């Protein structure tokens, strides 16, 4: 084939060698499943990061639909040393989207491998392939009238459980810690072997989605946020649909309230009184997801002044902090816990409680209630309109769920963001003990100067937080090597020893989470 319409090649691979590999991919997958022309690859190259597209341009994309095809792909990759970047639904916005961590990698796109293999309504679990979306699962559950509920990230309908869980993403129901609720995984290893975790290796087993650990080392975690295998099936537990769902919001007026909010909330989360992943969204997150745009208030350069934030609060009734949580269970259970919750807020002496009856169909309450009950919507993409222009990176440090810590992180983030003329747009996703402090670094990517500021800003956020002993739980592909450094050399040495053992040819997504046999020198 000499019709290649792209000059992008994998690192260290010449055109001739690459064409040989493409020929083999075509023989394996068929012409239509090997994409090597620029216009076919364009959709995989849309990124929201603070670099030019070329830095993450793929050399080709392959679509596979069976485990045997995935095995064939790794065989060819080993033969020609082709690095492959695997995506499931590829909706990893703000973390690199569908584009490879390094320019020139071949994308293995598993979107079309999309069978819902099993949903068990008695044992409450699902087993799915990589291309299954939450929207697809939601429709399946609805059509079959199954008494089950999903948990998902805000991109819900178009995202999927396998891809999200491989990056250890989170949702907003009591099953919001997705990796924690995952059970059973099938992985194609770099040598082509098909490995099933947990009880999956036992012949005739019916407990793959029932008991997580299996016997001996339990390796599911080792495959998440890693490049040790290609996950082709994943099981996870589903929450039974409760008889009563009671979402509510508590609105706080002052930015300084955050410390008291968190201290009040923690015992309620640790005791399980409030069982879901609560969010505490700041004013600009609330405004963005409520379709307020910065341009409606100001066109001044730099960060949005605090006076404008106050004005938005005044105009919309939104708070400096907006807490969304829910209760689940029978009416009696919900009533008992509602009293405990309202008593706690009364004792605090601040916070305006909004019930579903009061909120009605208004946004952002509606979309929050939907996310907390597993109903998909994309309302939160309004965040990308705050400044517009397609620039967004998640800066998501882990924090103790301790008021003083959250206040300190918020102050630190705001200072760095403002220094670079950007806004503090954030929420805390609240577990009993930890916070995913999720900050959307939003910028206009069409403006070169602003893009560079955002890039510097993100680097400085990482640096400044690291000085205080903080690190992020997940990051976009541009900064994956940088963040690996936050966690220390010993960890990286171990990760590379495992990589050498399982993928000696370094074909699986080198660079993923900073794991790359060609680049890591053992010193950083």
């Amino acid at each position, binding site marked *: 084939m000499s019709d290649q319409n792209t000059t992008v090649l994998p690192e260290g691979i010449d055109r001739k060698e690459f064409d040989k590999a493409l020929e083999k991919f075509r023989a394996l997958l068929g012409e239509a499943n090997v994409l090597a022309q620029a216009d076919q690859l364009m959709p995989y190259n849309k990124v929201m990061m603070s670099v030019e597209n070329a830095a993450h341009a793929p050399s080709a994309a392959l*679509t596979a639909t*069976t485990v045997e095809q995935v095995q064939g792909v790794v065989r060819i990759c080993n033969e020609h040393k082709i690095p492959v970047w695997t995506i499931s639904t590829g909706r990893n916005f703000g973390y690199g989207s569908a584009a490879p961590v390094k320019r020139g990698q071949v994308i293995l796109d598993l979107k079309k491998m999309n*069978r819902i293999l099993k949903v068990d309504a008695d044992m409450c679990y699902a087993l799915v392939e990589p291309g299954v979306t939450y929207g697809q699962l939601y429709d399946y559950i609805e059509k079959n009238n199954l008494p089950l509920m999903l948990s998902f990230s805000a991109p819900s309908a178009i995202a999927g459980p396998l891809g999200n869980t491989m990056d250890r993403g989170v949702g907003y129901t009591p099953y919001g810690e997705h990796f924690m609720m995952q059970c059973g995984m099938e992985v194609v290893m770099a040598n082509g072997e098909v490995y099933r975790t947990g009880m999956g290796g036992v012949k005739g087993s019916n407990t793959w989605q029932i008991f997580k650990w299996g016997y001996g080392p339990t390796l599911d975690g080792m495959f998440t946020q890693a490049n040790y295998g290609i996950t082709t099936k994943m099981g996870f537990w589903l929450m039974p649909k409760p008889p009563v769902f009671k979402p509510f919001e508590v609105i706080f007026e002052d930015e300084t309230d955050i410390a008291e909010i968190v201290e009040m909330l923690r015992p309620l989360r640790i005791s399980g009184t409030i069982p879901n992943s609560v969010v505490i969204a700041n004013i600009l997150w609330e405004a963005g997801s409520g379709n307020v745009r910065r341009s409606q208030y100001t066109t001044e350069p730099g960060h949005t002044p605090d006076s404008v934030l106050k004005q938005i609060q005044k105009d919309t009734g939104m708070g400096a902090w907006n807490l969304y949580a829910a209760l689940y269970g029978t009416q009696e259970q919900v009533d008992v816990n509602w009293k405990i919750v309202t008593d706690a807020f009364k004792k605090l002496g601040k916070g305006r409680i909004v019930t579903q009856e009061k909120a009605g169909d208004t946004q952002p309450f509606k979309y929050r209630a939907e996310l907390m009950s597993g109903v998909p919507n994309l309302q939160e993409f309004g965040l990308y309109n705050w400044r517009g222009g397609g620039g967004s990176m998640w800066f998501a440090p882990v924090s103790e769920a301790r008021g003083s810590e959250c206040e300190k992180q918020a102050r630190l983030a705001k200072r760095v963001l403002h220094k670079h003329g950007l806004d503090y747009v954030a929420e805390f996703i609240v577990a009993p003990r930890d916070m995913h402090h999720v900050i959307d670094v939003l910028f206009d990517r069409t403006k070169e100067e602003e893009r560079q500021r955002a890039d510097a800003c993100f680097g400085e956020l990482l640096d400044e937080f690291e000085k205080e002993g903080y690190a992020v739980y997940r990051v976009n592909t541009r900064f994956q090597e940088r963040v690996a450094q936050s966690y220390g050399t010993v960890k990286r040495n171990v990760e590379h020893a495992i990589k050498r053992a399982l993928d000696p040819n370094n074909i699986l997504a080198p660079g993923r989470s900073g794991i790359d046999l060609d680049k890591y020198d053992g010193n950083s």
Partner: protein
Amino acid sequence: MPRPSRNKNAIRLMLAGVLPLACASAAYAQEQSQWGSGKNLYEKVCGHCHAPEVGVGTVLAGRDLPEAYVRSIVRNGFNAMPSFPASYIDDESIAQVTEYLSTLPAPAAQP
């Protein structure tokens, strides 16, 4: 006209119910269109942002947008809007959704 999606869904459900772990026939899947109809694609994907009551993306209904334009935006993405590869939304589905959008009434002008 796209074939009605009702029958296909019924068959898909039956397969899923009867043969949970068996392959839901790759050959069978290939003969269906990817999203069934333009209406379905709009409801399951595009409309989550572009429906007038959502307001994340601009309203598309009743604007007679040309298919080539829709395809270009979907494939390239456009600023805040993500792109979709053909594995997610194929060309046939883009043609169907373009046609479907043109059959919808334009929303009333806002005061």
